């Protein structure tokens, strides 16, 4: 299989090849990989790719998937226009 054609993160177009290259360079935590490739930072916020990334890191490190943490979940889980947030903040003043 050609890892350049396999998408782990469809929101941010991150391929298996890109992830494997980083693993080879020693980046083996989801947080590091996320910061470099933006994997999991698109509209679905990692709901689709989080587990695939976990599996891939586990396979590389020869560990079980549950030994690899999932990327940290932070608000917001869906896109919200800044305008709406600003309006809500104004209302509270």
């Amino acid at each position: 299989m050609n890892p350049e054609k396999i998408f782990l993160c469809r929101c941010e177009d991150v391929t298996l090849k890109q992830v494997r290259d980083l693993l080879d360079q020693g980046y083996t935590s989801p947080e590091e990989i996320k910061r470099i490739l933006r994997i999991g930072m698109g509209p679905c916020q990692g709901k689709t790719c989080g587990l695939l990334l976990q599996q891939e890191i586990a396979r590389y490190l020869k560990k079980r998937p549950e030994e690899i943490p999932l990327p940290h979940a932070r608000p917001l889980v869906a896109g919200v226009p800044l305008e709406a947030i600003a309006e809500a903040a104004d209302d509270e003043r």
Partner: protein
Amino acid sequence: MIEKELVIVGAGPAGLCAARIAAEAGCRVLLIDRSPLLGGQLIKQTHKFFGSEQQRAKTRGFRIAEALVADLKPFGDTVEIWQEATVVGAYPDSVLTVWTNGEYRKIHFQSLILAVGAGERSLAFENNDLPGVYGAGAVQTLMNVYGVLPGKEVVMIGSGNIGLIVCYQLIQAGAVVKALVEAAPKIGGYKVHASKLRRLGVPILTRTTVVRALGDSAVKGVVLSGLDENWNPIPGTESEIACDAVCVAVGLSPLYQLAWMLGAEIPYVGELGGMVPLLDENRQTTVSGVFAAGDASGVEEASSAMVGGRLAGLHAARFLGHLHPDHTAIDTECRAQLSSLRGGPFGAKIRAGLKKAEVKVHAR
């Protein structure tokens, strides 16, 4: 800041049942759901359910959703429902943020039930970004909610009950299921569903996976490969099938994000589908006043989600000082129903998983 007594996130089978029982107990409830139709995944289920009468078996899924929504009608004064509202954030000081109708709202809750359900697992194969590669949930939504056929010739990946049922629904809708592909040596779902597909002539290929989707701008076919005992593709076993859609039904994983943001302990429990909140016997997470039910606390079926939702609603109400007039009877009945639903060989995995996700905390 909007003040609410009990907030329930997710109006699927668990959330709807939790809302009803909590309202019966005297709670003021806010039920929030992101979709325009209430019922969660039930709204796409056109088939009749198995199980016992108590969980409305022999009724079509979307009819169960209608019945659960109708059950809330008498509580119009105390159950408020926000539809097309997405909870986008949760904060440890008992605050939720909600995105709805172009407005960003903040809610402070006294108690919370997370009934957010599960997300679909995806699969890494070549060209898996081509239009025509669908998750089974999307196929069901297009076909059964909106009446849109996602493809004329479909290859299904995954033979759990969702894969099997969606194959059948595709055939009912006029599509041809070219093959059902399963990586394991055996089908994952009930034999009764698989038998139906075999009678309709659908090839079921076990120990097989998809390695590549074919096509430039849309799916025109798939390449399959046999798998060895270590799940590795066997060279020389590749075969090609023409199709215009690939449907991926490789399981669900609980949505853990809100529980994580609230600071609940959420271990990874493979048997339950992924990260799930630790729960005490009353479905309370490790965060006081925050409860969980349905697939969000472990992927099971709609029947157990309904019963688990009732339990969570009952105990969230008690946490808030509203003891349901039939508390003990309902509590006992729900627990008995859950044991029966999880009995037998098909429940073994769930039972093992739940043990790992259970925390012994004395009821408040």
